[in-house]
């Protein structure tokens, strides 16, 4: 057996050690070359920023003067400063509200729009459009819809059912909920599509068997449909929760945290601290905490799923 350097022959038992190392490197070189652009971009734009975020979160970042190590001070600041703790609270409320809202509404939509007729396909497409639209467009559109006077679009509709004009984004009591509404409006159709894909995989004979046993639609839903959708549900839960934690654009464009910080979330605060007030260390600590929350959430959902499957 000859070992031509670039021969694509796969040998399981190479004859001696020295040529092996060389040929192994040569053999795997093409793979690494094909990977090189991706590895380079991921390293520079994903992993370097991640390491810098962790590094900066332990430092007081001072341009030109050199960074000063401050231990956990930045984290202490983030967890005790009222503007940050408020923002953390708003982030959690928004993430939970948007996640639950879009899941429930998305599931309802999927049930109502399940089927294979052409008309339904059209309705599904029309319902899905908000998810395709760029967030910036959606935000500007809803600013107009939420116009706080009595003749604003949503207020006019509220007027038909006799509910007084709401200030929506301009009022501290309603701004966060108004943003949440936009998030659900845009998120529910996405969840609907994933649920529809899950529903398509449910064994039809189970429905028929359940019906033959005398189960009505509600009991079929509870005992057949929802258990079959469990894997889809875990994935949607993770995706939606991450989506909720990282919320930035809609807050930035709809309220910019206002009025009076009533809708400030961690990401908008991090943006303001980092880019407007140059508090890079504290901003990084906020980012790292958000990142940890994301990881913990993802892992927790996966563990819960494993356990659910074992049962």
């Amino acid at each position, binding site marked *: 057996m000859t070992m031509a350097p670039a021969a694509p022959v796969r040998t399981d038992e190479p004859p001696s050690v020295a040529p092996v190392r060389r040929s192994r490197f040569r053999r*795997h070189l093409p793979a690494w070359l094909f990977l090189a652009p991706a590895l380079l971009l991921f390293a520079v734009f994903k992993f370097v920023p991640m390491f810098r975020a962790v590094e900066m979160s332990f430092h007081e970042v001072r341009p030109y003067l050199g960074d000063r190590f401050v231990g956990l001070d930045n984290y202490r600041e983030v967890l005790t400063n009222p503007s940050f703790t408020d923002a953390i609270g708003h982030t959690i409320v928004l993430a939970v509200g948007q996640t639950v809202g879009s899941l429930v509404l998305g599931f309802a939509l999927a049930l109502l729009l399940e089927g294979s007729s052409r008309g339904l396909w059209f309705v599904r497409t029309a319902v899905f459009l908000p998810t395709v639209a760029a967030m910036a467009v959606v935000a500007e559109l809803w600013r107009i819809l939420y116009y706080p006077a009595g003749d604003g679009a949503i207020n006019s509709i509220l007027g038909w059912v006799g509910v007084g004009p709401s200030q929506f984004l301009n009022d501290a009591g309603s701004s966060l909920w108004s943003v949440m509404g936009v998030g659900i409006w845009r998120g529910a159709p996405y969840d609907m599509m994933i649920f529809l894909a899950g529903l398509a995989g449910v064994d039809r004979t189970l429905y028929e068997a359940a019906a033959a046993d005398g189960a009505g639609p509600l009991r079929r839903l509870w005992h057949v449909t929802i258990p079959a959708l469990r894997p889809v549900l875990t994935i949607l839960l993770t995706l939606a929760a991450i989506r909720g934690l990282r919320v930035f654009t809609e807050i930035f464009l709809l309220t910019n945290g206002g009025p009076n910080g009533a809708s400030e979330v961690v990401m908008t605060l991090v943006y303001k601290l980092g880019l407007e007030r140059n508090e890079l260390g504290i901003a990084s600590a906020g980012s790292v905490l958000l990142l940890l929350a994301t990881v913990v959430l993802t892992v927790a959902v996966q563990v819960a799923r494993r356990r659910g499957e074992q049962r």
Partner: protein
Amino acid sequence: MSRRNAGARLDTALGWGAAPGPVAFAARVLLYLVLVAVFSGPLIALLVSAFGPVTDPTRLTLIPRGLTLDNFAAAIDRDVLRYLANSFIVVGCGLLLQILVSVSAAYALARKRFPGLQLVMLLILSTLMLPEEILAIPLSLVLADVPILHVNLIGTLAGMIVPVGAWAFSILVMTEFMKEIPAELEEAARLDGAGDLRIFWSVVLPLCRPALGVIGIFGFTMIWDQYMLPLLVADDAAQFTLPLALRTLRSDDQVGLGVLLAAALLALLPSVLAFLALQRQFMRGLTSGAIKG
């Protein structure tokens, strides 16, 4: 195989039959009309209002009261064409880079076995958990002084293009797809003396056309939707993408709502049209990305 012996066939979870009675049919049509109105009504209102004479800043309209292109003319006066061009440059170059990078990485991950394969896969997968907004602050520092090259990408369109090349979703979709290609094809080409590059280009890639459609449409909507990255990179209005410019157009007191509507419509249409044209691919990507996880 339908089992008709157990009574009615149940095609859906709710058990709604394909042929409802007249009342049930009417009720269902009404329900669907409401759903369409709630979800695409606002977008249709944007479309109609952008072509209407806008004097009333509070209200979008669904019924056109006369067609006019005035809003678009005013928007062009406000440099909207430049923002649009910026957006197209960013999405065009960014998407091309993303596809090239993903396809090339996927070829190695799907068709090669080498030590470190698992680790590379894990690293790429882990970035799916790494939302780009969260890393915005350090990313802006990296962009101001790119490691090794020491160039400053702030204030350049390149700063919005290069980072979108790294997107784990398209690498994963592409890898899954390439794994399905039978090894015999590749071996036959190898016997004919083709090298890796040639096999990649003339054997594997042509077979990947459906998957290219998937990552193309997803990459397009994702890059078009980008907000944080252009916000970090743009130094002044000369580099604004259209979504970024909307905020400035809105806060410009001298122009009315009509300009914002026209610009918003222009920012809305490309992604919606791309979605409508490539719906099937979009749905395939949605399910392969989410269900397989």
